[in-house]
């Protein structure tokens, strides 16, 4: 029997994080759950352990405390084979327009924290010569819209970061996967009216991430394929019309 591989899941209390970690555990992986709220992460860790028998550990991590990243990676029981970062904070666009602190929180949570952490792990993976990095970005980063451009801009930055990292690491045989889930029925979107065809369940996202990262060689995935033409259409609208749309 081959020794089991290890997943580091960053964002271990989110619905997508829980579903993704469960999927990896069901496939026989060991799981490290990193989250800011350890007590909530422990609920998910217990659940995954009880359902699958997998070894699951919990590690405190705040993606805004970038100074702590080095020691965080240092204290992990093992350098993971794959890291999946699902951290995201939709924030409140209107609030962010007037409140710099809130805007900064959205930008840092969606871009700075995830990018710096994956960047650090990329160096460790390079040194070891293996590893897969998965970043959950967003279709909101494909084009800025008036209703959520702070979030969208941060995700656009993250998408560009992942693209550049992939470009750099590909020749060394390391993979970087960008995931754009589209709408997902989660705590983040509770109460929103979402079009069913475009809306995925967390379990669907978990399966798509596992398949993309471990079973295929794809670089950028939309969880529901319908999003690709949708975003292509949105991307092709000339700016002079786009700016007048209420989106």
């Amino acid at each position, binding site marked *: 029997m081959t020794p089991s591989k290890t997943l580091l899941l960053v964002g271990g209390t989110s619905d997508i994080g829980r579903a993704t970690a469960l999927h990896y555990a069901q496939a026989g992986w060991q799981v490290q759950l990193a989250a800011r709220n350890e*007590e*909530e992460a422990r*609920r*998910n860790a*217990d*659940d995954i*352990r*009880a*359902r699958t028998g997998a070894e699951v550990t919990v590690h405190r991590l705040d993606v805004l405390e970038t100074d702590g990243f080095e020691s965080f990676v240092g204290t992990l029981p093992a350098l993971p084979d794959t890291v999946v970062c699902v951290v995201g904070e939709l924030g409140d666009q209107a609030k962010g327009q007037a409140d710099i602190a809130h805007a900064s929180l959205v930008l840092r949570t969606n871009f700075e924290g995830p990018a710096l952490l994956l960047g650090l792990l990329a160096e460790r993976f390079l040194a070891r010569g293996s590893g897969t990095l998965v970043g959950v970005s967003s279709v909101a980063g494909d084009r800025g819209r008036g209703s959520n451009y702070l979030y969208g801009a941060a995700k656009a930055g993250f998408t560009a970061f992942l693209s550049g990292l992939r470009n750099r690491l590909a020749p060394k045989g390391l993979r970087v996967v960008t995931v754009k889930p589209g709408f997902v029925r989660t*705590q983040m979107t*509770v109460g929103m009216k979402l079009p069913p065809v475009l809306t995925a369940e967390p379990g669907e996202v978990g399966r798509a991430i596992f398949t993309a990262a471990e079973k295929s060689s794809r670089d950028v995935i939309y969880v529901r394929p319908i999003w690709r033409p949708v975003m292509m259409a949105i991307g092709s609208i000339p700016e002079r019309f786009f700016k007048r749309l209420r989106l």
Partner: protein
Amino acid sequence: MTELTGWGRYPRHPSETISPLSPKAFSSLMASRTGLVARGNGRAYGDAAIGERVTLMARGLDRIRAFDQATGRIHVEAGVLLSDLLDIVVPKGFFPPVVPGTKFVTIGGMIASDVHGKNHHRDGGFGDHVESLTLALPDGVVVTCSRDENPELLSATIGGMGLTGTILDATFRLRPIETGWMRQTTTVANNLDGAIRALQETGSATYSVAWIDCLARGTSLGRSLIFAAEHATQRDLDYLRPDAKPYPPSKLGRLGVPLDLPSFTLNRLSVSAFNELYFRAGAVKSGYPFLVHWNPYFFPLDGVGNWNRIYGRRGFLQYQCVIPTAQAQPVLGSILERISRHGHASFLAVLKQLGAGHGDLSFPLEGFTLTLDLPVSDDVFPLLDELDRLVAEAGGRLYLAKDARQSPATFEAGYPGLSRFRDLRRAIGATGRISSRLSARLGI
């Protein structure tokens, strides 16, 4: 505000709904709001899981916290669905100690209703198997309840319809099984007397239940099929179906009822034909033990999604009473006679034997329990009031998890533990703070 109903889709009440995602969020809501009750998967039939003002949706508490495969002890949050639990534990060789007639219920709901199964005469209710639970009290304080710690609170919470606080998690023991199959034996009873006798005789079986053709009349009144079953052993499997997998998958095809059927679909003739078919199909198999998958044995109606819609838009009432053993035969006979005379269609007429009860607001007591489905119509209410009188006179009671319409007087007559329960509610500050439409209707 959302309009909520139970599984019977009668009555309908507006309520604010909140879906807390963590045990902490539950306890802080408990402390800050009043007129609330927790709701699991909404499978209580009447108004038990509709808050007077606020309904706390408990499905967010869906984590399994520990599962010890050496002892079968499992610790789960209250919003975990029984169906989810079964998918996890059956392939590992375990089965819940007690299951109700549907697997689409939460563990919290199973405790709050102290659900019974086809094995109550041997194993008691689900509550009897709960080793400990965590309860968020009306003031938000979280306490552990077990046989050693807060035993009165544990006892009142079992069958307490969520009125002592919100159950956050629970620990109980599963029973070991060798296969996922049931070894079933079917016998035929030609009338009610025969059915009661057959249930008493099959009392040594772990599981037993009688399906009554409640449209049969005269000397055939109460004619039934009695299904007795055991968890099949590996030897049973080798003998009866050597090619079968010990743990067959539970995902069987599901048939759905997508729309409300017009209520005339269920007239006397169609139900009569259904019962005739059911009775014959069962009678053919009579006498020989055979293997059936645990899923259709325990949860036959779960195969039909949204079956509650076959009764039409007005909804339906499930009437479930228990009559003490000594009076069971004559009283259940008059109930069946009245139902039959009235011509009200009842898809489901199930008769089970119950063992000694748990007390407080828990339903079971030593006797026989009859369950009937009746579509809501103007003349069904006076009929049921009449049945209530028969039940009360016989020292019986109605199941709160099914109830949507009994009067406070019927309720008080059936539950002698009520005043003690009210005292406990007052003592923990639950009166007025934790209240469902059911508790308001019945003055609990």
